[in-house]
């Protein structure tokens, strides 16, 4: 341990470690991070948490695992990606204690490449080898007829696309903890599956908009002059259009699939990031170390990506966290208005809108729980974003 400390003293504190120390200092940050992690975990294992197929069943002395046999290849891909992502996080932690700062970048890059390769090769393999099965066997009926010896069900033993006309619009009870909706689907089950929609929209849409923002912002900021002038006028034109109406207009032209909604939200919300990155680049461009990089004739690629971009990673990350919340919110709003993903794919916004029935009855459990879910998720993102902002710039925290 002593040796470890010695090494650390020589290595010094990297920006990442500094931010981590600052971030951990405030308990609220850690609480929101843990909640967010739990939410992500819930989204990943949603089909195991809520499924109408039993986890395990014994019929005539033979064990069956219907739930796993019925998972779609996409589910397995998500499991794979989540596992690889988690392992990568562990690896990064290990890198920080074992490797010198100067080689970390290269090692991390190699590990990232490896993980991407695993996911990229693994996913097609999963799609090839995991058959798309739609088992019609009604295990619940089997159990009722005493055909099965014993069965273990998921904690919420309903599918998100369940329709049961016998149990429509039930208020919360013992069998349906958060009640059922107008076609008899369990609200809790749909909430759990809806987190997948929300989080994937948040993640991918924020990712797309951040990438576009970085690409355009860095070009405008680095080259300046005419490029910057024309570029920023275009950005201002895009900004002048209210984002939400822009999204609705786009949605009208494209099919109501999750993917198109993600892409549409992504390509309409990059203006903020672009302006931010441009401003940072304009500031950095005047710094001596960038002048020095140019005077050493470092390639443009290295100057921009190696010397400038990492120096504005803070504002970009913070902005991405807020973008994440914004994208979730936009998707919920779209679905609430009926422009979002088509049922039976669950979405929190869509569930919210079903709270008021055609007969005018107000079903509180259909609005309260999805509403809370949206509220909590968005708030968590904003808390994390603010925590990051304070961590990157500790002066800000003391100023207020």
């Amino acid at each position: 341990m002593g040796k470890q400390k010695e090494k650390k003293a020589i290595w010094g504190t990297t920006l990442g470690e500094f931010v981590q120390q600052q971030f951990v200092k405030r308990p609220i940050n850690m609480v929101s991070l843990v909640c967010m992690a739990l939410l992500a975990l819930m989204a990943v294992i949603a089909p195991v948490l809520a499924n109408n197929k039993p986890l395990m069943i014994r019929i005539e002395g033979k064990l069956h695992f219907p739930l796993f046999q019925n998972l779609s290849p996409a589910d397995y891909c998500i499991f794979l990606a989540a596992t690889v992502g988690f392992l990568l996080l562990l690896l990064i932690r290990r890198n920080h204690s074992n490797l010198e700062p100067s080689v970390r970048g290269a090692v991390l890059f190699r590990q990232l490449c490896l993980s991407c390769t695993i996911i990229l090769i693994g996913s097609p393999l999963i799609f090839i080898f995991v058959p798309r099965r739609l088992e019609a066997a009604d295990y619940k009926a089997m159990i009722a007829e005493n055909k099965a010896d014993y069965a273990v069900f998921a904690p919420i033993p309903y599918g998100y696309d369940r329709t049961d006309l016998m149990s429509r619009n039930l208020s919360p009870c013992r069998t349906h903890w958060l009640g059922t909706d107008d076609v008899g689907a369990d609200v809790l089950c749909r909430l759990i599956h809806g987190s997948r929609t929300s989080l994937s929209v948040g993640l991918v849409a924020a990712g797309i908009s951040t990438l576009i923002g970085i690409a355009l912002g860095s070009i405008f900021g680095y080259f300046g002059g005419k490029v910057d002038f024309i570029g920023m006028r275009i950005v201002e034109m895009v900004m002048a259009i209210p984002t939400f109406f822009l999204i609705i207009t786009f949605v009208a032209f494209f099919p109501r699939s999750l993917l198109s909604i993600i892409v549409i939200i992504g390509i309409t919300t990059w203006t903020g990031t672009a302006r931010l990155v441009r401003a940072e680049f304009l500031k950095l461009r005047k710094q001596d170390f960038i002048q020095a990089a140019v005077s050493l004739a470092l390639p443009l690629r290295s100057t921009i990506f190696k010397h400038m971009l990492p120096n504005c990673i803070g504002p970009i990350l913070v902005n991405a966290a807020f973008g994440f919340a914004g994208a979730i919110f936009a998707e919920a709003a779209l679905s609430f208005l009926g422009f979002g993903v088509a049922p039976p794919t669950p979405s929190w916004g869509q569930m919210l809108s079903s709270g008021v029935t055609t007969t005018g009855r107000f079903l509180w459990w259909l609005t309260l729980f999805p509403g809370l879910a949206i509220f909590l998720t968005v708030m968590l993102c904003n808390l994390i974003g603010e925590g990051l902002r304070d961590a990157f710039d500790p002066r800000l925290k003391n100023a207020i």
Partner: protein
Amino acid sequence: MSENNSLLSVRNLSVSFFAEEGVVRAAHKVSFSIKTSQTFGLVGESGCGKSSVALSIMRLIPANQGQIVGGEIAFDGQNLLELSEKQMRRIRGNKIAIVFQEPTASLNPVYTVGDQIAEAIMLHKNKDKTQAWKAAVEMLRKVGIKEPQQRISQYPHQMSGGMQQRAIIAIATSCEPALLIADEPTTALDMIVQTQILNLLDELQKQTGMSILLITHDLGIAAERADEVAVMYASRIVEKADPRLLFSKPLHPYTEGLLKALPRLGQSTKRLETIPGTVAEPMYLPSGCKFHPRCRTGCHDKHCQTFEPELKEVEPARWVACWHAPGYQ
């Protein structure tokens, strides 16, 4: 003075910056030449155009702000102003390197010192990463950093200003440039470190035979280190000579005024002389000799007020731009 053995010769270099209010001439018909293994001192107060000259040699004047409007910069037989950007990239870092004033701002805060030295070596010497790191350690040792093995994997903020400047010099000299431009390399450092850094530059010059363009506002540094000194005022070189001659017998009233304003060791504490007036506004320069409003003789002389003197050789290797200098006509 023959121009044949000179490594860099700048002739009639003019640089303009375009501000919203008008054109600012940062350099006007600046001419000088640096011989191989020689140190050339460029002295002048802030804003007189020293750094613009340095940036012009590297062709780093930001294109949307300023432009080299005239003259030529001959380096190693080729005119740098005629080279394409691609050819220029081969010169930058490889043949001409620059050290900036502020050591804390000249290193990228997110990379270790070793990363930054190794990157330059990898690029210009075609070495792989391990070789480049070995060379980087060697460079750090050369510039006098103790325990280079450990220092190399440290971040800039873990080093003192002097050490940072040493590391920057290591980056700049790692590719053995023929010319090192040192743009106020010691201004941000205290006196002792200043001497150390200047000694280091001298030593490196002896080892590699590079030429140094030493830009400074400190007359003492220029007198001590340079083989030839040029004094700049209002974007023009007003006097150019061997430092011993320049400081013992200044010909231009501006140089004279500067020297009189210097405190000297061992002299009684009588009030230091000042140059009357303030530095000319770069955008609204006076007519004629740019120094005439502040000059004791020039301010009454019609000739000084209307006609601008050009830099002329009045004695062998003594150049001055003043109508009243002995031998100037």
